[in-house]
C-alpha cells in the first residue's frame, strides 16, 4: 500500500487493510489463532460430524409419524416413533380436561397472552386501559378454567369491590381491619355460630360455566398455569419481601427475614408435600381446598423468597445517593420506592429474576411427585398403554423441546428488556 502523507489535522478515516476484515480475518482470529485452538476446532468439527447426522436420522429421517402402535413404527423405520406424540398430543396439552370444554382452556390462554402484552410491551397503544384487563385476567382465567355459578361469580365481584372500596377510602389499615373482621367472623362461624357470610347463596346457583375438577387438569396446560401464576404473583410478593427485609421497622424486617430464610431453607418438594398432605390436617374435613390451588400458592411463595433475595441484591447495588436524592425531593417512602428505587433496582436484578422464573417454570415438573399430571407426570400413564410401551425417549424429547422453547423465549425477552432499559450510554 502506498504511503501517503496528510497535512496535520486533515487525516481522513481510512478502511482497515485487507486481511484485517471480513470472513477470513474472523476465521483466523476465532478458529485457527493458536495450535490449541486449531486442535479444538478440528475436534469440534469431528464431534459434530459424529453426533449430528445420527441424531438427525433418529429425529427426522428415520422417524415415523404415521402409525397406530409401536410395532407399526418399528416396521416402518428405525428412528423415533413420533406417532405416540401425534396420538397423545391433545392429552399432553390438556391432560384430562373434558374435550367439549377445551375451548375454555384455549380462550384462557389467548386472554393470558393478551393480558401479558401490555405488561411486557410498554409502547403498546392504549396500554393504560389494557392494564385494567391484565389486572382482571386472573379472576377471568380462574372462572374460565375451573368454571363457576352465577352466585360464585357475583360473590367474587362483590368481594373485590368491597376490598377496592375499603382500600380507596381507608388505605392499608382499612384492609387490615377488614381482614381481621373476616377472620373473626370465619372463626365464629366455624365454631357453629350462624353468622357465616355466603354472598354466593344470595344468587342463583346455576352454572355459568360447568365446573371442571382441577384433578382433570394436566399436560402443558398445567405447566403454563402453575408457571404463569407463580411468575406473576411471586414478583410483587418478592419485591414486598425485599423491601420489608431492608426496612427500618424491626417487626416487619423480622417477619420478612424469617419467611425468606425458612422458605429458602426448605426444598420445593417438601413444600409440595406439605401442600398435598400436611395442610389437609389443618383444614376441617369436608372442606375442599383445591390441591392445585395449594400447589400454586406453594410454588409462588417458594419463588417469591428467591425473588426477594435477588431484588435485595439490586437494592443493595443502588448508590445511597439515589435514596438521598429521592428523600431530598420530598417523596414519600412508597413514592420514592416506586419512582426511583425499584425501577433501578429491578433493572439491575433482571438477569437474576428471569433466572428464578426459568427455574420456577422448570420446577413445575416436580408436581408429578404429588400426583399432578403435568407432561412428565403423563409419561407414565401414556407408556402404560401397551400400544406405546417403551417410547419414553420420544416423550421426553418432545417435553424437553417444549420447555426449551418456553425458557429460551423468557431468556431472550430478558435480554431485550436489559437492552431497552439501559440508559447509561445511549447515543
Amino acid at each position, binding site marked *: 500500500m502506498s504511503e501517503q502523507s496528510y497535512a496535520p489535522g486533515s487525516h481522513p478515516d481510512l478502511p482497515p487493510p485487507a486481511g484485517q476484515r471480513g470472513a477470513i480475518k474472523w476465521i483466523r482470529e476465532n478458529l485457527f489463532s493458536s495450535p490449541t485452538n486449531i486442535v479444538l476446532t478440528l475436534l469440534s468439527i469431528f464431534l459434530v460430524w459424529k453426533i449430528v447426522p445420527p441424531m438427525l436420522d433418529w429425529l427426522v429421517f428415520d422417524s415415523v409419524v404415521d402409525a397406530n402402535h409401536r410395532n407399526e413404527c418399528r416396521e416402518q423405520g428405525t428412528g423415533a416413533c413420533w406417532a405416540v406424540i401425534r396420538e397423545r398430543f391433545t392429552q399432553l396439552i390438556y391432560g384430562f380436561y373434558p374435550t367439549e370444554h377445551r375451548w375454555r382452556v384455549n380462550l384462557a390462554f389467548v386472554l393470558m397472552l393478551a393480558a401479558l402484552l401490555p405488561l411486557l410491551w410498554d409502547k403498546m397503544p392504549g396500554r393504560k386501559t389494557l392494564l385494567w384487563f391484565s389486572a382482571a385476567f386472573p379472576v377471568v382465567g380462574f372462572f374460565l378454567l375451573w368454571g363457576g355459578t352465577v352466585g360464585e361469580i357475583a360473590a367474587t365481584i362483590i368481594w373485590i369491590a368491597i376490598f377496592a372500596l375499603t382500600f380507596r377510602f381507608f388505605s392499608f389499615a382499612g384492609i387490615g381491619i377488614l381482614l381481621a373482621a373476616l377472620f373473626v367472623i370465619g372463626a365464629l362461624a366455624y365454631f357453629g355460630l350462624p353468622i357465616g357470610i355466603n354472598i354466593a347463596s344470595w344468587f342463583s346457583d346455576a352454572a355459568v360455566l360447568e365446573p371442571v375438577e382441577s384433578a382433570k387438569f394436566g399436560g402443558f396446560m398445567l405447566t403454563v398455569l402453575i408457571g404463569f401464576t407463580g411468575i406473576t404473583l411471586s414478583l410483587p410478593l418478592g419485591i414486598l419481601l425485599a423491601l420489608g427485609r431492608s426496612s427500618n421497622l424491626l417487626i416487619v424486617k423480622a417477619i420478612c427475614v424469617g419467611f425468606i430464610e425458612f422458605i429458602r431453607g426448605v426444598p420445593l418438594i417438601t413444600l409440595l408435600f406439605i401442600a398435598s398432605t400436611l395442610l389437609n390436617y389443618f383444614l376441617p374435613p369436608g372442606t375442599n381446598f383445591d390441591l392445585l390451588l395449594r400447589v400454586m400458592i406453594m410454588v409462588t411463595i417458594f419463588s417469591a423468597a428467591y425473588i426477594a433475595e435477588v431484588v435485595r441484591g439490586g437494592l443493595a447495588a443502588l*448508590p445511597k*445517593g*439515589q435514596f438521598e*436524592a*429521592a428523600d*431530598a425531593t*420530598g*417523596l414519600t417512602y412508597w413514592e420514592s420506592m416506586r419512582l426511583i428505587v425499584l425501577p433501578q433496582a429491578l433493572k439491575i436484578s433482571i438477569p437474576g429474576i428471569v433466572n428464578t422464573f426459568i427455574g420456577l417454570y422448570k420446577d413445575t415438573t416436580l408436581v408429578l411427585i404429588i400426583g399432578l399430571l403435568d407432561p412428565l407426570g403423563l409419561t407414565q400413564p401414556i407408556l402404560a398403554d401397551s400400544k406405546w410401551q417403551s417410547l419414553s425417549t420420544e416423550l421426553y424429547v418432545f417435553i424437553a423441546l417444549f420447555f426449551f422453547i418456553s425458557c429460551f423465549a423468557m431468556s431472550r425477552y430478558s435480554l431485550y428488556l436489559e437492552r431497552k432499559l439501559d*440508559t*447509561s450510554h445511549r447515543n
Partner: protein
Amino acid sequence: MNTNTNNDQRLVVEMDQVHKWYGTFHVLKDINLAVQKGERIVVCGPSGSGKSTMIRCINRLEEHQQGRIVVDGTELTNNLKNIAEVRSEVGMVFQHFNLFPHLTVLENCTLGPIWVRKMPKKEAEEIAMDYLSRVKIPEQALKFPGQLSGGQQQRVAIARSLCMAPNVMLFDEPTSALDPEMIKEVLDTMIELAESGMTMICVTHEMGFAKTVADRVIFMDEGEIIEQNEPNAFFDNPQNERTQLFLSQILAH
C-alpha cells in the same frame, strides 16, 4: 428569581445548640446558626469537620440528637409530616449530582413538582424547561443523565432543585467531583442564582466563589463552628489559629 418583594428579616434556617453523634463519635458540637432570607453562606473547613453533616441535618438526611432545627417556621422532629414539609421547601445539590439515571433530564426536573407539589404534568414541564434554559441546557432535556458531562449533570441537578421553588438551597461540595474545566460553568450558574436573591448555604472550597457572592463565611473544624465573618474580613484577617492554618493551606498554591 422568585418574587422576593417583602424583604423582611425572617429566619429561613435556625439551628439552636444542635448536637449529633455517630455512635459515640461526637460529630456536631453545639451548632448555632441563623440564616436569614436571601442570605448567602459559604461553609468551609477541613474534611471530616462536620460541615456536610451540618447541612444534611437541615433537610433531615441526617437526624440530630440534641437541640432544635427550625426550617421556615417548621421544626424538624420525628413527625413525618414536618419532615416532608421541610424537604419540599429545601433544595439540595449533591457532590455526585445524584440525578436519577433511569429518567430523562426533563423527567428528573418534573418528578418533584408532579408528585410532591401535585402539579399538572404540562405545567411542570413548562417550568422545568424554563429552569433548564436558565442553566443553559434546554437542548439536553430529552437525554438521559448518563449522556451528559459532569458539569451539565450538576447544572441539571440545580435546575431540578429549583423546579420545586425552594426557600433555601443547600449545596454539598457541588464542584469537588468535577473535572477542572467544568467547575466554572457550575460556579457561574451558582453565582447567577445568588444574584437572583436565593437563600443559599454552600459547603465548598471555592474561595473565589465565596469572595464573590457570600454574605458570610463559616469555618468549621472538628464539629464546631470556629469562626464566621463577612468574606473580606474572613479572608484578610482570620482570628482563629486553625482558620489561619486552613486558609494558608488552601490558598498556598
